[in-house]
């Protein structure tokens, strides 16, 4: 009788430990995106390094491509960048860089009173410099100065990476930096599959 009771307490305790262990290992930042399997939101943004030219996702129709959200102030972007550079060299898929709030997102800059023209020029300068320093894996890069396109893509933590299929449907979203595992196990097989 006593032994039985003791065993029950032990079982209940073990169950609680397992529950808490699983809970601790979940990443609360990983929120399933409702955008997966939905059309990539349309936008038209100025391109970096190509004065006067804009880019819209429709131009990628018929191609499997990746959209990578980054900024020079984003520390984790530096962490994932070598992977992107490597991926760019392999030419698996075109990678479009979405530079997210290059100036406004930098907490160390007070840009609230900066005229738009000046902000634009500063963003171009900083983004170009960063790509020169760390390598440029992007087919092209666009500037999202106010983060409005980021909102449409549900961006809430830079970096984020999307895989978009030939019909313009988002098929995968990575929140946070890319890792070799995610690349090998998810993104590369997915791109191969979508390209068939």
């Amino acid at each position, binding site marked *: 009788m006593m032994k039985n009771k003791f065993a029950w307490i032990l079982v209940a305790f073990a169950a609680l430990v397992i529950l808490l262990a699983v809970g601790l290992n979940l990443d609360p930042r990983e*929120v399933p*995106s409702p955008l997966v399997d939905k059309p990539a939101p349309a936008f038209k943004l100025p391109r970096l390094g190509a004065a006067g030219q804009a880019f819209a996702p429709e131009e990628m129709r018929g191609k499997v491509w990746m959209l990578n959200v980054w900024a020079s102030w984003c520390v984790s972007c530096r962490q994932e960048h070598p992977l992107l550079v490597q991926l760019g060299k392999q030419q698996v898929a075109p990678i479009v860089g979405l530079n997210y709030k290059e100036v406004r997102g930098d*907490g160390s800059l007070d840009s609230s009173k900066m005229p738009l023209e000046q902000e634009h020029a500063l963003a171009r300068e900083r983004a170009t410099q960063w790509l020169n320093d760390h390598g440029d894996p992007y087919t092209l890069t666009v500037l999202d100065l106010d*983060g409005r396109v980021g*909102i449409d893509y*549900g961006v*809430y*933590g830079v970096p984020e990476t999307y895989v978009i299929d030939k019909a313009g449907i988002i098929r995968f979203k990575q929140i946070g930096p890319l890792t070799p595992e995610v690349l090998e196990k998810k993104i590369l097989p997915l791109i191969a599959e979508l390209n068939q």
Partner: protein
Amino acid sequence: MSARLYFSRFLAALGLALACQLGLAEEARPLSDDPVTEQRLQAISAELRCLVCQNETIASSNADLAKDLRREIRGMIQAGQSDQQIIDFMVARYGDFVLYRPPFKATTLLLWGGPLIFLVLGIGALQFYLRRRNRVLQAARPLSGEEARRADALLTEPDPADSPLQGPFQGKDLQP
């Protein structure tokens, strides 16, 4: 520390606290001059979770994204969109997670039904325990006829505390 020094320090602390208050008030100053818009913005954004600081609402968070989203919502209100349209806009981008009150649907069944399941389990366990305890008590050695009579007698005996003259420790007992 002298009383004067103490007082001056208190004044300085008070001044700093007030300065902080003023600073906050400055930061929270609505960008729109229309109080109706601001009130609606407050109401809507208090229902939405900030994705960056997940335990804060978009109304209360100071994260950059929350500021951007407040600006977005303000713009939508001014464009004449309904509250539901604005909520739908957020859910389309960030999922149900953005809602502080998650909707009742298949994927949230456990979330809403969980407490009820635990309640039923708890009541079941309590009932099981009480029944078993009852059985155990009944199974214990019952009183013999003589014991039952003695117990009855003890229970029906008038309480000495009720009649002070019949108690075992009366004053007269102590007299020689």
